């Protein structure tokens, strides 16, 4: 187990380093932020002064070394638009995205798992059909379209929920539903098929033969066995959630890291783009690593040599 963890940890660090380098290269190929910051009437000297002041005149490799050494200290530099550390801008937005991400993930898991179980238990009935339609529907629905429909129905016509922004539970409902919908189909179908496989195992037949009630079988025998693939998918889904959050946050004006990243891209705010990309990738890698550990704890049969 220890050896396995160590190996994964080294890999994790290599991936992070690679991503950091890649992001640096991509960002510096795409344009010149100084030109976005000065009015059109600025003279070449004024432009050059600003460039020197921001360190953008140095050779690329010097900029790269500066960037990497700072990165190791968790310093992505100041935002180009504002003299505030990019990392601080990013961290300010983390709670909003976490709130939305957790709400969306919990909602998706609850709906996906429970509908999946019911579908599997009542296979080929009308209940199963509804479950499958739900999965297909939420998979095919564009996120931004669903979001706008929710806003039009619940804010414009029914006037029940605020159309945008972050605040209390009321503001959270529509973004969380939107984000969850994006992730329900995967969980639902996986639960359904896993359950279905397990139902036909010998030990379930034995349990049934013993005369155990349905709910005991579901909770004690099936769910624990089905949990492993579901947890894996939920863990892997973390990246998807972050991706979905960018659209959801933009439509609902939810002040999270997704919105920050989009803003930074439109204004070519390189340090912020780098900070959010690097940190998001690292967090996905870390979550996958943690998922592996949970995996090992849940299933004692899995041994890592």
């Amino acid at each position, binding site marked *: 187990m220890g050896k396995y963890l160590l190996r994964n940890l080294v890999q994790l660090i290599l991936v992070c380093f690679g991503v950091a380098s890649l992001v640096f290269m991509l960002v510096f190929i795409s344009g010149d932020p100084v030109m976005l910051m000065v009015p059109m009437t600025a003279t070449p000297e004024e432009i050059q002064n600003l460039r020197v002041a921001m360190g953008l005149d140095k050779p690329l490799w010097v900029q790269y070394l500066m960037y990497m050494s700072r990165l190791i200290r968790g310093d992505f530099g100041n935002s180009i638009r504002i*003299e505030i550390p990019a990392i601080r801008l990013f961290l300010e937005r983390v709670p909003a995205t976490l709130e939305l991400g957790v709400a969306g993930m919990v909602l998706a898991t609850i709906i996906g798992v429970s509908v999946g179980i019911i579908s599997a238990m009542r296979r080929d009935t009308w209940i199963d059909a509804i479950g499958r339609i739900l999965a297909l529907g939420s998979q095919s629905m564009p996120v931004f379209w669903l979001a706008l429909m929710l806003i039009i129905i619940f804010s414009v016509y029914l006037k029940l929920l605020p159309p*945008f922004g972050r605040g209390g539970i009321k503001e959270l409902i529509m973004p969380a539903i939107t984000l969850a919908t994006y992730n329900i189909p995967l969980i639902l179908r996986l639960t359904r098929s896993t359950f279905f496989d397990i139902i036909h195992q010998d030990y379930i037949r034995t349990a049934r033969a013993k005369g155990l009630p349905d709910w005991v079988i579901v909770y004690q025998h099936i769910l624990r066995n089905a949990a492993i693939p579901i947890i894996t998918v939920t863990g892997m889904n973390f990246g998807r959630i972050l991706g979905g959050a960018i659209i959801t946050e933009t439509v609902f004006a939810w002040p*999270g890291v997704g919105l920050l990243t989009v803003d930074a891209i439109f204004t070519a705010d390189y340090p912020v783009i780098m900070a959010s990309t690097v940190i998001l990738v690292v967090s996905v890698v870390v979550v996958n690593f943690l998922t592996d550990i949970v995996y090992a704890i849940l299933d004692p049969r899995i041994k890592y040599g």
Partner: protein
Amino acid sequence: MKKMWKTLLIALFLGFIWGWLITDSHSAPFGKVTFVIDSDAPTMDPHKHAERSGVTVNWQIFDSIMFRNNDMKVVPGLAESYKIITPTLIQINLRKNVQFHNGEPFNARAVKFSLERVLDPKTKSPRVPSVNWLKSVEIVDDYTVKLNLINPHPLWMEDLHNLAMVPPKYLQEKGDSYFAENPVGTGPYKFVKWTRGQEIQLVANPKYFKGVPRIENGIIKIIPDASTKVAALLSGAVDLIRGVSPEEIPVIKANPNLRVSTVPILRFQWFYLSDALNPESPLYKKKVRQAINYAVNVQEIVDNIVGGLGTPTVVLNPMHFGFDPAVKPYPYDPEKAKALLKEAGYAQGFDMTIHYTTANMIKGDEVCQAIQAYLGRVGIKVKLQKWSPTGYMDIIKGGRAKPCFGLNWGSFGVFDGDAILTPFFRSGQQYAFFHTPELDKIIDAQRQEMDPEKRKELMSKAQQIIREEAPWIFMYAFKTVEGANAKLDYKSRSDEIFSFYEIGFKK
């Protein structure tokens, strides 16, 4: 018993508030107005950015020496009066009894400090071009300053109206980074709270020198998505939105609680024939450039694609000082275009790439496709090359946007033809892809001419020359559409400046 006390106290408190409201209802600010911007302000420091969203926030909190009034004229603001002693020496008399929100007095020292702060390279201010004509600022007494200019500069009032006055003592004590998040100005609203990416809260400044504001709480919300913005207005969550697209106008109009207003703005669109001075290019020939202008039906584009939200125009925006209405847009005449092409030796037409970005445009892709179709009819095969707004100016500056690129320009709120003539037609400027010695002379002359009438004549001459030379595909000036709560009493402005101070509720 305890509960009774509580109730009694609340009743007393409410009674007090009620009494205060009815006795003071004429002068005290009340109510809340929510305005929407598309993206967050970069910083609250007015000297450290040049972005529209930030400018919108700044002008609630800060004032400048000059103001632009609702008729778009520049008039003294924090200045009481001014005197042009010589063309390079201007005396400004300041208003007395103006205070910053922290109680610090506004005086000559604050003016000197603010202007020098922008000029100081250490500030890294992108606002430098608004003051780079200034040699020095001299304090005469507490409420009088003298500005020494490098050259005569007729646009000094326009430029000064763009520069906020900041409190010297506060900035020196707290530092720039604190100021960037806790701004203090002399403006009609005081800063309360900024939740980045979400909202900015402001409250009326009861000591404002022009009088107490009518609205007590000004809220600026950040909504990046255009559809959400409209939905927010329809649901009543916000009171005022900008930049409504033509297809959403009927939706807002259908709601009895809302109203729509259309206002012309300073921003306008053109396509620069950036190879006009390259002898190898077909565009080198004046007849070809004129033919292109005859071939494109700008009025039809405005009416059918942009939804009427534009006005065909030639060199300047009709609202620029110096605009000459006698310089008319090219009429649509494809036959003449073909004839001109034939005379120039291009009867078979030629290939041309148009570079563009859709930033700020209504239906930018469709407009460019229409131009492609019009030019195709006279034999010019156009290839469209779309760029992202990020770095587009870089491509233009690097000379890569050739032989033609689309651009729209808001003149940085300067209502003067020089805002176009110098950057785009004066040789030596990085965006001047067409210039002639004669044009250079005229542009330089108007830039230092202090007599407005003579300036107008010079600018009119420049417009005639540019129309004749046709280095642009002349397009149209923009209009913007605002959607608002019908209860609000306010007037839309052409300079895209929005102020809570100008707003009240209808009685």
